[in-house]
């Protein structure tokens, strides 16, 4: 094909393919990234025009410094009790992740996904939102359920697809759903939840309700068309919704540059729709809490949607099917410049004199023990291999009523 081999002139075009700075064997390289100082970012009024908020997309809202001090106008002034609760939620989330990851490795189920390093993002949101606000999560926000005190054992039942699995064995592990907890059924199809969250928020506004919606999507999945339609509809109808991008630097093996992160921030996407774009240190519980609260107040005041980019790092593998050592330096996580969300909140409480290393160890142990005990309970009910579900149940809930062809298939399947 002469067309494709083309004329190689001196001014020839060439294709740019982004690549991360470090691959396995390389030294992790976060040099050249600079962040605003904790406390340095001003806090706008909730009714500030979106146009004036554009620069937030390029900063980073931070409250906690690395010594554990809460600084600046975004500091949310939470009670020590509240923060201890937050810390415990994060510890429980991490302990749960650890155990369930192991359970999969032990063959007790087919699949698991941890949120290691990203616990603040979901736990802070779960605590900043009202309990009846509706969440449209992706698959790495187990912290929301934990912060909302959803029974840990029901999460395990779901993961084991056992007889008490609220989803009747129908869903891949971790694809939770709970109407009660305001936690929308997780989809395996990335980003589909975003316009749904916007629609739910529109319905709430349509109905004169007071509840708002919040949705989460990964840095990688922002590339889906649904991200665009969600922002378009949210902006056009001023939907009371918070759209959270959890930028954990990776989408399976692809670094965030493949999703467009080389050229600008993910928060900046909001600018193009006239949606306030807040960029926050996702490993800073207090900052995530404050930013979520700000966005929620804005939404409740009929001032429309907010886009929040949570800047963080995926500490673990993408899922139990993944081995990150094949595509990134094994020690990259430990070099993450913004630290660990649990360690940082712990440090804050300690610096306030409201927590100690000892208490922390005890809390950690208690979380592990809670998970262990719950795990034993759940395993007594059963794990995946045991096949707890009646064949006939497969044909329920396709429709409200079972139509003739499914009745026929159900009957045949048993014969």
């Amino acid at each position: 094909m002469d067309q494709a081999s083309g004329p190689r002139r001196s001014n020839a075009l060439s294709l740019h393919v982004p690549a991360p700075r470090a691959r396995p064997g390389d030294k992790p390289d976060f040099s050249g990234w600079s962040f605003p100082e904790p406390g340095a970012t001003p806090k706008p009024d909730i009714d500030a025009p979106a146009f004036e908020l554009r620069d937030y997309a390029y900063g980073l809202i931070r409250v906690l410094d690395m010594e554990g001090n809460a600084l600046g106008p975004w500091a949310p002034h939470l009670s020590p009790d509240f923060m201890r609760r937050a810390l415990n939620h994060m510890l429980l989330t991490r302990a749960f992740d650890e155990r369930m990851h192991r359970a999969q490795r032990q063959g007790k189920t087919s699949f698991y996904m941890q949120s290691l390093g990203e616990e603040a993002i979901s736990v802070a949101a779960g605590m900043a939102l009202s309990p009846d606000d509706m969440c449209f999560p992706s698959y790495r926000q187990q912290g929301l359920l934990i912060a909302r005190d959803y029974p840990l054992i029901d999460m395990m039942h779901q993961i084991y697809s056992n007889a008490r699995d609220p989803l009747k064995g129908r869903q891949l592990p971790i694809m939770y759903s709970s109407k009660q907890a305001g936690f929308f059924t997780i989809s395996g199809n990335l980003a589909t939840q975003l316009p749904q969250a916007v629609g739910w928020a529109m319905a709430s506004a349509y109905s004169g309700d007071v509840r708002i919606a919040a949705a989460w999507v990964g840095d990688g999945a922002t590339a889906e068309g649904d991200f665009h339609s969600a922002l378009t509809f949210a902006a056009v109808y001023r939907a009371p919704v918070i759209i959270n991008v959890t930028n954990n630097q990776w989408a399976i093996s692809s670094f965030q540059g493949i999703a467009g992160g080389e050229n600008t921030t993910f928060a900046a996407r909001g600018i193009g729709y006239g949606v306030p774009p807040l960029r926050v240190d996702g490993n800073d519980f207090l900052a995530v809490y404050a930013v979520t609260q700000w966005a929620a107040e804005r939404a409740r005041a009929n001032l429309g949607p907010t886009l929040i980019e949570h800047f963080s790092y995926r500490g673990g593998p993408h899922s139990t099917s993944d081995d990150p050592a094949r595509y990134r330096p094994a020690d990259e996580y430990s070099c993450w410049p913004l630290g660990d969300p649990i360690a940082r909140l712990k440090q804050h409480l300690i610096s306030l004199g409201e927590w100690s290393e000892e208490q922390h160890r005890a809390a950690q142990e208690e979380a592990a023990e809670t998970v262990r005990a719950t795990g034993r309970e759940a395993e007594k009910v059963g794990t995946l291999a045991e096949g707890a579900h009646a064949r006939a149940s497969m044909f329920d809930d396709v429709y409200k009523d079972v139509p003739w062809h499914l009745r026929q298939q159900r009957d045949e399947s048993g014969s």
Partner: protein
Amino acid sequence: MASMSMIQALNSALDTVMGRDPNVLTFGEDVGYFGGVFKVTEHLQQKYGAKRCFDAPISEGGIAGTAIGMAVYGLRPVVEIQFADYMYPAYDQLVSEAAKIRYRSAGEFTVPLTVRMPYGGGIFGGQTHSQSPEALFTHVAGLKTVIPSTPYDAKGLLISAIEDDDPVIFLEPKRIYNGPFDGRRDRPVVPWSKHDASEVPEGHYTIPIGKAAVVREGADCTILAYGTMVHVAMAAAEESGIDAEVIDLRTLVPVDIETIVKSVSKTGRCVIVHEATRTSGYGGELSALVQEHCFYQLEAPIERVTGYDTPYPHALEWEYFPTPPRLIKAMRRVMEA
């Protein structure tokens, strides 16, 4: 009772349900102030306000996605996809989400959503204003697919669809929006007012989803049709001299297998007609079902009369469109077999 076109009947269905249930709202491209490019939502914004009937961005995926969210909230959204040819950007939301949310949440979340789409050819609309994508929905467990063929059915079925607690794909045969068309474009245009089924009650009534109608009784062979093709089938039955039984399926999924089996058991011969491309069209499913249920009653191969396996060609529309002569040829073949 009033004589209504199919457009008026659909509009009346929306008006009726919106008048009864504040949870019903409707939106889509040009649906609001303008009342839709086919006028199905005319006057609804003026009557019910812009919050209950409004324009949407040109994003079928966004329309479907936000409507799903509204349905999950507890509303009963009715959305319009301007032409069925433009449903593809919404396909993921419909297939991966609307169809599966009840199942994957074990019944906790449900999607009482109605997606209206004008479909089919015969209006010189070319490749992207003429498609019949029904088979792309009938393959998807969790969706119901409904296609009316008269004003009376259109209103009753649309009300059923809106009141249904599952997502319903509601395909509207745009060629017969304004009058029954039997595929004979050499004949004068007939308005709906000349047709019995244009007598439509003003108020609330329903036609059950899942029930076909035998629109012509006959003994010689069975014709399975839906939408515009019902009228083509009726014309073919009249002109052919063959005493055909014409079944208007009205619902494709779940299909009314009883009515089909009863008829084919009686006639022993079956012709299926649709406008969609042939390969893997819904006619394939119908053919399979008929031979599975009526193998021993069949006296001739089941015939399919369909659109060809090509995009819809603008200038050759009338070669593409299944017309009574094509159908009659197939009927002759099954009779002579």
